[in-house]
Every structure is written in structure tokens, then in C-alpha cells.
């Protein structure tokens, strides 16, 4: 029974050093730089602040304050406005410039509650002002609230950094995992096709059914892995375009021909309405092809069997745009789900009409590719039913 003592679930208790309390439970020891050419003011402020346990440094001019700041690294600066040499406003501007992005909040000390001073002080980068003569409670309350803001924003910065590091690590992992899964999946798909096609002898109907299931499952896994890899690549900022002038109509014709082969199984047809427009523009051919393929295969997926999908090429020379649309005969996009549509894993309530798979990544990838081309992608529900996905790209004739 002794062993139960040793194996008590120590690890389930939160570690003692975990900062469970609020991050500013204590502001003790926080560093404040007090700048005033009047020794008496320094003494008064000093006694108010030391009583609260703050750590203080003093300076009696703007120039001295700038030097002291660099050594002392205060969390907050109390800065007199009227001083010989550079005044408080100028001191503040120089501090903000020298410590851009990290500069401690500056509270001005003003002789009178003069609104001109207050306005100029806030313009110079100050966060607040303390009127003389000092009211001890007011001084402490204002300092406390600005220190708390400072601590919160530091905390936030650290969290954002942690999160973006974690996200980058996740993308690297995703990329590696997906990369290593692709080849085996491609082999499973290919080898099952050899079996299906009778390359190693004839199969009976039940065997063909099983082999087809293996083949289709490996195909959808391969699609998923490819899309995950695309997302990882794009999120890692590695989406690099190789732009070359290419006729849009050619790209769409190729994609339509390919889609029609799959669509035939659902008795669905894809037709092109080029209305004579055939813009040639700089695009990354492979990536834009991916966008067209994706929009067309979605249209087939979500339209009922026997539907007609229309791919439209458009050109608006006056506005300097061109692009294409894909019109489907699906259920349309519910108003409330439109925002989700172009986001990662933004699967909607609509389901494919013949048991096809959806990863919820395709449109997010499309949006990223189109945006990398300085274009935009949008969706409208058609009055006649169905929806129209429209890609608009900049076009200089």
C-alpha cells in the first residue's frame, strides 16, 4: 500500500509556481522614473510612491531623464513639462523615438490644469497628466491604472508571440506529416488501380467492389493531405507565385474538360460561356488552375445529378478587371454561413449530393491563391437558385 502514496497523482495538481493569480496582484517593485527640476516636487512624489513599494529613480532635467531611462528601464515615467533645457514634451518625443514600441507610459506633471498643455502632452505621446499640487490618492490611482495597462499589454505581446510560434510549429509539423503521407497514399491508389484494372488477373464483382473502396478512400485521403499541405505552405508564407502571361480561356477549357469526365458519372454537365472575352493576364498557371478545378468540382459536388454548371469568363476593361464565375444549381449559400465559407475548415450545412467528400479547406486555399494574385473571390446566390462564385483579378489591357 505504500506504493499508493508514491504514485499519488501529484502531476494533476497545478504547479506551485504557476501564476494563477492576476498578473498585477502586486505592483510592488515596479520601476518609476520621476523627472522634475524642482527638488521639492521630487521629494513629495518620492514619499508618495515609496510608500507603495515602487522602485524609484530621479532626474532633474530632460537630458538626464533620457540617460537615466536607458540604464533604469522604468515601467512608467512621471515627467514635468516646464524644465530648463529640453522641456517635458520634447523629452517625451525623444524617449518615444528612442524606445519605439517598448517605451514605458509617460504621465506629465503640469503646473496648472491647462488644456493646451494637456493636449500637447497627449500629442507628444503621453498617456495622462497629473496636476500640481499633488493629491496623493489621485497620483497613486492613476499610476496604478497605467502600470496595469502596461503589464497587460506586455502580457498580450508575449502571448501573441507564443501563439504565433506555436502556430508556426504546427504548420511545420503539418507540412512534414502531410509530405510523408503523400507517397504511400499515391502508391496505394495506384496499386489498387492496377488490381482493379486486372493487371494481375481478373477479379470478380465482390473483389472489384473492395478494391474500388480502397482506391476511393486513398484518393480522398490524398486530396485531404494535399490540401493540408497547401494550407501549411500558404500559412508558412511560402506561397510563391510564378507569374506568366496566360490566356484565361485556355485554363478554363482544360479544367472544364477534366471536370466533365468526373461530372459525367452524375450526369452533370459543365459548359463555358465566354461571351467572346479572352483576356490574357499574368497568373501562376498551376495555382490558378487549382482554383478553377476547385470551384468547378464544388459546383458538381453540391448540384443535384443532371445539373448544368456554367463557367463564365468576364472582362471589364473600363474597371481594369477580368476573371471568371462558376454558376451551380446547388442549394445556395445560407446567409448566415457566408462568412465561414472562405475560412479554413469552413464546412457548411450543405452536403455533397452523391456522397462525395469535402475537407472544408478548398475554398480557403482558393481565397489565399486569388488574394496572392491581388484579386478577390466572392459568392452570390442566384435568383434562379444555386450560387455563383466569382473570381476577380486586376487586368491591364
Amino acid at each position, binding site marked *: 500500500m505504500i506504493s499508493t502514496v508514491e504514485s499519488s497523482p501529484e502531476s494533476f495538481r497545478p504547479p506551485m509556481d504557476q501564476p494563477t493569480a492576476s498578473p498585477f496582484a502586486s505592483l510592488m517593485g515596479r520601476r518609476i522614473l520621476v523627472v522634475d527640476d524642482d527638488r521639492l516636487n521630487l521629494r513629495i512624489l518620492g514619499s508618495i510612491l515609496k510608500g507603495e513599494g515602487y522602485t524609484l529613480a530621479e532626474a532633474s532635467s530632460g537630458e538626464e531623464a533620457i540617460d537615466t531611462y536607458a540604464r533604469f528601464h522604468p515601467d512608467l515615467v512621471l515627467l514635468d513639462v516646464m524644465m530648463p533645457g529640453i522641456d517635458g514634451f520634447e523629452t517625451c518625443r525623444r524617449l518615444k523615438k528612442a524606445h519605439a514600441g517598448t517605451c514605458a507610459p509617460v504621465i506629465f506633471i503640469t503646473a496648472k490644469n491647462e488644456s493646451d498643455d494637456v493636449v500637447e502632452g497627449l500629442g507628444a505621446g503621453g498617456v495622462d497628466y497629473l496636476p500640481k499640487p499633488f493629491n496623493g490618492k489621485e497620483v497613486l490611482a492613476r499610476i496604478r491604472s497605467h502600470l496595469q495597462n502596461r503589464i497587460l499589454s506586455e502580457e498580450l505581446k508575449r502571448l501573441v508571440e507564443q501563439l504565433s510560434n506555436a502556430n508556426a510549429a504546427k504548420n511545420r509539423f503539418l507540412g512534414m506529416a502531410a509530405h510523408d503521407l*503523400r*507517397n*504511400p497514399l499515391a502508391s496505394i491508389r*495506384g496499386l489498387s488501380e492496377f488490381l482493379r484494372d486486372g493487371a494481375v488477373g481478373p477479379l470478380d464483382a465482390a473483389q472489384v467492389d473492395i478494391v474500388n473502396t480502397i482506391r476511393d478512400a486513398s484518393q480522398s485521403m490524398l486530396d485531404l493531405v494535399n490540401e493540408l499541405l497547401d494550407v501549411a505552405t500558404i500559412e508558412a508564407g511560402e506561397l510563391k507565385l510564378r507569374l506568366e502571361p496566360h490566356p484565361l480561356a485556355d485554363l478554363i477549357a482544360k479544367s472544364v474538360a477534366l471536370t466533365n469526365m468526373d461530372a459525367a458519372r452524375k450526369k452533370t454537365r459543365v459548359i463555358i460561356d465566354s461571351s467572346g472575352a479572352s483576356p490574357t493576364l499574368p497568373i501562376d498557371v498551376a495555382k490558378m488552375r487549382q482554383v478553377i478545378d476547385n470551384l468547378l468540382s464544388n459546383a458538381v459536388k453540391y448540384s443535384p445529378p443532371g445539373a448544368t454548371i456554367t463557367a463564365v469568363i468576364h472582362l471589364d476593361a473600363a474597371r481594369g478587371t477580368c476573371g471568371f464565375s462558376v454558376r451551380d444549381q446547388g442549394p445556395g449559400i445560407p446567409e448566415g454561413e457566408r462568412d465561414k465559407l472562405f475560412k479554413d475548415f469552413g464546412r457548411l450545412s450543405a452536403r455533397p449530393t452523391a456522397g462525395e467528400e469535402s475537407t472544408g479547406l478548398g475554398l480557403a486555399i482558393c481565397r489565399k491563391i486569388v488574394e496572392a494574385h491581388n484579386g478577390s473571390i466572392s459568392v452570390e446566390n442566384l435568383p434562379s437558385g444555386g450560387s455563383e462564385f466569382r473570381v476577380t483579378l486586376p487586368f491591364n489591357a
Partner: protein
Amino acid sequence: MNFKGTILLADDEPHIRKFVGLILKGLGAAAILEAGDGEEAVAVFLREKPGLVLLDVNMPVVDGLGALKKIKEIDPDCVVVMLTSLANRETVESALALGASNYIRKDTPKEEIAKALTETIDACFEA
């Protein structure tokens, strides 16, 4: 496919060797030798002198580019085709600069691989 001699197929993934091997047989390949890394590929090449080599880019011990360099030193006229999955442009360009005839995506459907292989091989060997 116009090439009727011995083919060396080097890839560290056995399922890829099986898959691409079946494609080559479908194209009428007479004899296929296999290697699981770049060093083995060079050793088999020296011993068997195949007229056509398919080399995976990412292999242990000696990678595809290393093996390509060695093979081209031994026989500058040997036809070498690289196998890649997600093609890294720099790798492909270095392979072509080192004398590879082409590169083929092995993660595409078998019909596409067969077509690319036939085109590449027929461009190198007369009927």
C-alpha cells in the same frame, strides 16, 4: 516505349518501386533492377550497366543528386530520369544541370506517370 534494355529503378520506398515497376512493365519493360538508396544504385549501375536509370531524389545514404553525379561520371551517355513527389524547383534544376533527361512526379495517377515516362524515354531513344 522505345527502350527495350535493362532499367534500374532506385527509390527508398518499396511501394513506389512496386508501383512504378508495374507501370514500366505495362509499358513493355523487359528487365527491371531495383535499388533502395543512392549508394546501392551506383553499385548496381556499375555491375549491370543498365541503359536507363530512374532515380528518386530523396534517398538515404547517397541522395538522388549524388547518385546522378556518380552515374554521369561513369557513363555520361546514360539516360537518367529523376522521380520526385512535390517537386522542389532548385532540386529539379540542379538535376537537369547535372545531366538528368527529365523529372517525373511519382505521386500523380498512373496514366500520367506512364505518359510522362513514355514521352521522356521516347525522346531519348529512337524507335
